[in-house]
């Protein structure tokens, strides 16, 4: 199961539909301060089922909806879709029937989040389980937020132990 594409629409500063193609090896993401690089990582964690606003630098889950800019009005929904290539049929059961797996999450103001997997409505829990079974997910230790290394260094020993629990 390989991650091949991330599409953002109305998610934080990515108001227009934007595709990030994820290919093999090392892909660099560059740009000035504040242009949106960290928002891409947050979109990935969000579509995999992140449910804590603080982990998205926000006060509430709706803080990910495009809030408007100088020449653009605020949106009232945000959507991120993740396209997985499953030709190797290594996906967790329940999702292993198709060549491709498309996970879509949409949040609508005052309504909440809704998830789809290959067009079918699913619960947040199903999506979280899919990624957990595939050794990834919103809390994967392989997703290192900006400043997270400093947190690990400064953490008390008991807080640090939790990184090991991800491995166990």
């Amino acid at each position, binding site marked *: *199961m*390989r*991650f091949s594409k991330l599409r953002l629409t109305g998610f*934080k*500063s*990515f*108001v*227009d539909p*934007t*595709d*990030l193609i*994820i*290919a*093999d*090896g*090392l*892909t*660099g*993401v*560059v*740009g*000035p301060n*504040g*242009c*949106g*690089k*960290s*928002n*891409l*990582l947050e979109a*990935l964690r969000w579509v995999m089922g992140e449910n804590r606003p603080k982990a998205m630098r926000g006060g509430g889950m709706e803080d990910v909806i495009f809030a408007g*800019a*100088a*020449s*653009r009005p605020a949106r009232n929904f945000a959507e991120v879709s993740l396209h997985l290539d499953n030709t190797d049929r290594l996906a967790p059961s329940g999702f292993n029937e198709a060549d491709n797996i498309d996970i879509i999450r949409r949040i609508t103001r005052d309504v909440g989040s809704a998830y789809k997997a290959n067009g079918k409505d699913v619960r947040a829990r199903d999506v979280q389980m899919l990624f957990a079974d*595939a*050794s*990834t997910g919103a809390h*994967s*230790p*392989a*997703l*290192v*937020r*900006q400043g997270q*290394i400093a947190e*690990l*260094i400064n953490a*008390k*020993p*008991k*807080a*640090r*132990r939790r*990184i*090991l*629990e*991800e*491995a*166990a």
Partner: protein
Amino acid sequence: GRERLLTAFEQVNTSFAMLFKHLFGGGEANLVMVESDDPLDAGLEIMCQPPGKKLSTLSLLSGGEQTLTAMALIFAVFLSNPAPICVLDEVDAPLDDANVTRFCDLLDEMCRQTDTRFLIITHHAVTMARMDRLFGVTMQEQGVSQLVSVDLKKAEALVA
């Protein structure tokens, strides 16, 4: 419960010690369980000795040395159960050019050992030059992000 944590600890500790040596070009490092005999309740202390220096806890090392050591731990955990996707957001910020080069060598090694796809967010020119491809994020229109494909020369102008 306890068994699994102890097994994970041993495996990660071995990888960690090896990755530390690899990143520092020598020296020693170890994870130590502290503050409790019960592994489910214990804390994780990190003892490290960069080449030519005295053994000490992580806190006495320099900012860059602490970052490199934490990277060794993160990758040790990663190797015990490689994820299909790994995203690193500006982890190279505290590193000098020599250490950024070692960090990139480690990434190449991870690519050889796993099928993981990597997204590396960076401001560092050295890191950019080591990537297989580059995407630039811009805000031509204030407050609105756009993604563009860039070659290395363009990226250096983008970041400057």
